[in-house]
Structures are given as C-alpha cells and as structure tokens.
C-alpha cells in the first residue's frame, strides 16, 4: 500500500509498504477514505517529539471502511467508521473510568518503558505518534490495522459525508474536552489561545456549554475570522498586548476560564518565548510554553485553566506562584476520545456543531509531503488539510 512516512525533520514521503494484516483477535483493518493532518503532526514534522524512527507511518485522524475483522471485533465488513486516535483496551481500570487516554494496555509492553520513566506511568497507545506511545502505524495510509476495534471506532450512518464526521477522531472531542475541563458556568467569559482546529472547536464548544463570551487569540487573520464566525471576539497578539486587552475586555477581572490550545511551538517574539526558543535550539529545554504562562497570569482569581495543548517535557519559568496564589484549577490531558463519540456524533447529526467549515484543502494522499509543507508554512490560509488516498492527483481541489 501507499503510506506517508516520517523520515526526519521536515522530511515526510509517501512510500510503498506492506499492507497491514489482522494480528490480534480484536483487530480490524480499515481502508482509509479520509485522513487529516493535525497540529500535533507538526510537532513531529518539526522534530520535537522523541522516539520517532525513519519510516514510521504518520497520521492519527482517519476514517474509512472496514475491510477485515478479527474474531473478537464487533465491526462488520463494509461499515464506515471513524477511529479515535487513542488506542484503548476498554477493559482496564482506567478505561472503566472512561479515562481512555490513560489506558494501561493500549501501549505495547516494551514501548511503555520510556513513558513510565518520563512521566511515572505510561499512557495509552496513539496511532502514528512515536514509539513512546506505541510505535503504531498511523492513518495517513491506504490501510490501517486498528487494535481493540470493538471499543474504539464509531460506526457512521449511511449518507453522512466523511467531511462532517472525520474530526470525531481527534480535534472535535479535543476542543470539546478542553471546554468541559474549563468547567464553564453561565455568564462566563472564556479566553481561548490559538485558533487552530482545536481552538476553533473549543470556541464552539464553550458557547454550547453556556459561555456568555468567548475571546479568541491568534495572529493569523483568517483563523481569527473563523473564530468570529462562531461569535467569538478576537485579539490579534501581534497588534495588541494580549494581557492588557483581556483585562480591558473583562473590566479588570480577567477571563473566568482560559484554554491553551497552542502547544509547545508557541509563536511570537515575547521575551519568555525567545528564551524558550534558545533553550530549545541548544537542547536545554524542549517546550515553548508562552501561551500557558499567559493563560495562567491572565486568568481571574479562582478561575479555571484548561490545557488541551500538547507539552512533552520539563519546563521552567512556569508561573507556579500565580497558579497557587490565585487559587486556579488546571486541567489537561490527551483526549479521552471514546468517551465523547456518541454524544458528538449526535451533535453533528443535529447540526449543533459545524465541522466542515474548517477544511481549507482536500488533497490526494500522494501529495502528502506538499500538504505537510503547506500546513506548516501557510497557517493563515491553510486551516485543515484532508488527505484522500483514493483521490486522483489531477482532481486535487481547494475548498
């Protein structure tokens, strides 16, 4: 089959590799019809996530048709499914508590060592996201082997477009969980750092959960425009000082809840960010944490900070004092995707959540390398790229 593989920093290629086969009883093989590139993939592309190996197949946001099932799968050939990016067994203690990204078993035994050492305990497996999270081949490919297919994938009713449901695999539940973790109360002002896919779904989710106002922060005009489409007020951090603007907009109180959906590659020439950048380039530190610092400092006393953004390592200049003195609550985590699927599928079907607005480009899988370059270099115009394995190159279309 054809699959998009990581070969190093800013080097991804579409390779020909063996088709996956059923290995375990609960496996299914999915023929991918749509697969997206995520902001998380950019962290791999930029070489910030350790334990990648040349040839690793990328992609954790995908859906397709069931073409083969193991005897322990509950899926049937021909069904269309969206697959969660978290690989969870459904039977361990954490799965029982619906903490699927903390599944004890989704990550193979040998791969758990690094995460155990780094984080104290290993987390679940993830598709296409380094060997620390399992070394699983990802979904930017024609076919994928999906373990524990009886608990992960959600079956999509006939006649519903891929574009409408694809984002159930990650960014929609991630934006939703981000808002849920912000414990929004009626009348709240919620500030969202980052108007990428995660931030934009967090904006929609925050309104659905009763926020009176949502303030979205970014520096790409087109992404800010999308946030405004959903009713958010916006701050362009290149034009206005974010903290000052937030204080003014909230009458000196600060936002009741702050959501960091930027992550370890924060942009901007802020002093702390530049220092982080130097440390990163000299291997003294790996994460640029400007946005979470700012979220904590801006948040109102007694407020909530939600951090869907991905960070990987140990950081410094973290405003622990502000967190403590102001009595803030901080919630975070990889998304427990499986927990949200039925509810969010309903919300899509009832048209309470708009998902298709996000897609700026649809391209053949064969043009995967170009797609990564575009998503990386042209963030203003490129909000989300969906790769289609079946699509002819000539038919490459821009939405």
């Amino acid at each position, binding site marked *: 089959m054809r699959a998009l593989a990581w070969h190093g920093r800013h080097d991804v290629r579409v390779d020909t590799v063996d088709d996956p086969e059923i*290995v375990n009883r*609960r496996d299914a093989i999915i023929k991918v019809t749509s697969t997206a590139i995520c902001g998380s993939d950019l962290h791999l592309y930029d070489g910030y996530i350790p334990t990648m190996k040349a040839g690793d197949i990328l992609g954790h946001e995908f859906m397709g048709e069931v073409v083969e099932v193991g005897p322990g799968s509950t899926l049937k050939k021909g069904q269309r499914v969206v697959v969660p990016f978290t690989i969870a067994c459904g039977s361990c203690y954490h799965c029982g508590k619906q903490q699927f990204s903390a599944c004890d*078993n989704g990550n193979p035994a040998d791969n758990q060592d690094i995460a155990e050492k780094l984080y104290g305990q290993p987390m679940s497996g993830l598709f296409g996201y380094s060997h620390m999270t399992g070394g699983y081949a990802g979904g930017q490919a024609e076919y994928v082997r999906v373990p524990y297919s009886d608990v992960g994938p959600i079956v999509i009713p006939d006649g519903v477009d891929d574009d409408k449901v694809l984002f159930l695999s990650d960014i929609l539940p991630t934006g939703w969980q981000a808002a849920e973790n912000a414990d929004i109360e009626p009348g709240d002002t919620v500030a969202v750092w980052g108007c990428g896919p995660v931030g934009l779904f967090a904006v929609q989710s925050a309104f659905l959960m009763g926020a009176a106002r949502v303030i979205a922060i970014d520096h790409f005009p087109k992404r800010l425009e999308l946030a405004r489409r959903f009713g958010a007020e916006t701050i362009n951090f290149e034009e206005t000082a974010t903290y000052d603007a937030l204080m003014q907009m909230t009458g000196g109180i600060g936002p009741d809840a702050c959501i960091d959906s930027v992550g370890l590659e924060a942009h901007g020439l802020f002093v702390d960010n530049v220092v982080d950048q130097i440390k990163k380039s000299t291997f003294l530190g790996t994460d640029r944490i400007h946005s979470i610092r700012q979220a904590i400092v801006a948040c109102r006393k007694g407020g909530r900070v939600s951090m869907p953004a991905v960070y990987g390592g140990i950081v410094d200049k973290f405003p622990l004092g502000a967190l403590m003195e102001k009595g803030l609550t901080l919630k975070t985590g990889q998304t427990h995707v499986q927990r949200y699927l039925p509810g969010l599928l309903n919300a899509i079907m009832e048209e309470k959540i708009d998902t298709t607005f996000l897609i700026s480009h649809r391209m053949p899988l064969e043009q995967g390398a170009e797609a990564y370059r575009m998503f990386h270099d042209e963030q203003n115009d490129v909000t989300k790229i969906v790769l289609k394995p079946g699509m002819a190159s000539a038919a490459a279309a821009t939405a």
Partner: protein
Amino acid sequence: MTDGATNSGQDDAPLATSKHGDPAGETGGRMRETAGDQITSRAVTINRPRTELYAYWRDFANLATFMENVERIDVKDATTSHWVVAAPAGKTVEWDALVTEDEAGSLIAWESAPGADVPNSGRIEFVEAQGGRGTVVTATILYDPPAGVVGKIVAKLFQREPAIQARRDLRRFKQLMETGEISTNAMNPAQAAAKEV
C-alpha cells in the same frame, strides 16, 4: 534520539532490584539466599479476580505466552515443569523447575532443580486490590549468575536487565488477562512473532 527500545535499556533504574549482597529476605520472602543472588520484584494491578489469575499462572505451560524469553514450558507432573529459554546465537538453555510453595488463589513459588546452568527461582503472589480494582500481583525473580565462559553467555541472557524483562513480562500478563490479547504494533503476524518494538 530515535530508538525508544535502546534508550530504555541504557540507564534503567529498576524499581525494586537489590543487587549483590542485599539480604534476600527483604524482597524475596522465603527464597534461597546466596551471596551472588540477584533479586527483582515488581507489583502490577490487574483488573481480574485473583483465582482466575492464579489458575492461569499455575498452569506453567501458559507462561511462554507472555514471557518473551521463554520458548516453551512443558509440565511434567503436578510440581515439575521443564523450561526452554532462548539464549543468544539461536541457542537455548533448559532446566527443570519445581514448585516449592503453592497456596490456591494466592501464591506460587518455584525453584530450578539442582544442577541448573543458572540457578533461579520465582515467586508470584496474588492479593485482592482495594476498591474493586482487581488483584495486586507481585512477582519476584531471584537468580544466581554463574561463573565461567559458558556461564557468561547464559548470564548475558538474564542480565539483559532482568528487571526490564520482568516488568515487560508482567505488563504482557496484565494485557492478556484484562483484554484477552497482547498489545502489539506489528503490521502482520510474522512481525508480531519476531516481537519487534
């Protein structure tokens, strides 16, 4: 930094390994005590009843399913089993093991028969976990690295960090018991058999 497997093996600090000279009694209970013994012990909580876990383990033939180095274990009678373990360069090491303690539902201890190339013993305990979380399984493996050239080759196999081996084997045991299968990132059955990381 690209190879996860290698990284993990390099500077590993086993959770509960007492090296040369530590009294075996500290972690090994009633196990043999010799000056050169190495002990490794680790606990894992498995979301299944302890009788079920005990029963699976008590049939020693099952252990090869999740113990990576063990090629096969033949059960000879109620207390004796024959272990065939993969060694470097395609060789195998074999020995008989005898069950020395057996408490239904809670404890199994075994020990290699006299004359084994690598005298070793193991002990596994099953204790009900609090809060309905299943069973706390504690495994303790004790082995005595042999001297001499042949001994060195054999020991290499064990010294491939016994603590790493033990914790990975225990994770596989947990996976098998909780999910009915052993998680793998293999793309096909052949890769799975080759046990790639």
